[in-house]
């Protein structure tokens, strides 16, 4: 799925010459728990202080990336706009767990723009100096 966007981690780094430091992993679904929001706050804070960081949405966390979220009925705010502007804010990359995207029915077009599908395997995780969860 999304074949052309499914990049090998090594290709990505050599192409873009990025030096990743911290990977923040969001693996819980949106709106029912808050650790995803807390992870986003961490990423945006790092970016605001010019610290290199990237976000990985894995497992149920890929559901943060679905287009067309309207959480106002729950009294919550959508993060779609923030995520769409992540690159402008200075977050180096948004990654999504490709198998999880498949599991949750997130095909190309259903995912917000600017997300790179990857396999969150040993090789991918090894590319980051620090790996953290918000909670």
């Amino acid at each position, binding site marked *: 799925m999304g074949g052309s966007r499914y990049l090998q981690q090594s290709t990505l780094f050599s192409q873009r010459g990025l030096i990743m430091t*911290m990977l923040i992993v969001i693996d819980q679904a949106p709106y029912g728990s*808050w*650790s995803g929001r*807390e992870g986003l*706050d*961490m990423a945006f*804070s*790092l970016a605001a*202080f010019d*610290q290199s960081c990237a976000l990985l949405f894995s497992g149920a966390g890929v559901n943060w990336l679905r287009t067309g979220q309207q959480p106002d009925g729950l009294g919550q705010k959508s993060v779609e706009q923030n995520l769409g502007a992540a690159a402008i804010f200075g977050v180096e990359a948004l990654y999504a767990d490709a198998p999880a995207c498949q599991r949750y029915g997130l095909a190309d077009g259903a995912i917000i723009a600017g997300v790179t599908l990857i396999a969150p395997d040993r090789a991918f995780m090894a590319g980051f100096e*620090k790996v*953290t*969860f*918000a*909670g």
Partner: protein
Amino acid sequence: MADISLQTYTLVITGAPYSSQAPQTALDFARAAVTAGHRIDRVFLYGDGVHVASALICPPSDEPHWPRLWSEFLAGNQIPAVACIASALRRGLIDSGEQQRYELSAHNIRAPFEIAGLGEWVEAGTCSKVLYFHSGA
């Protein structure tokens, strides 16, 4: 055994006392680290971990008093401690400044914890090894 150099740690606690083991595991780690001669640069409370800084927690007398145990450890070792403001305010952990700002009836942060932003966590990460203690749920 490998040669072990002295470290500077920042401990981040994201699990609440009495809901998770995070504050207990973190304190046992912290005590062992200090005993071994390592330095703890600061302790940062995030998410549900901010409850460690509560001055109003009243556990049964036969249970450990985690906020008090943490306060005593931090004060005794002169280790700065911060509760993240965004997490704290949402959960009703308030200092006197925020009490005035929001015209609240009380404040309840236990010394030596202070309320500050995520910038403290970002800065800590640039100069120390950061360890996270999450809920096991």
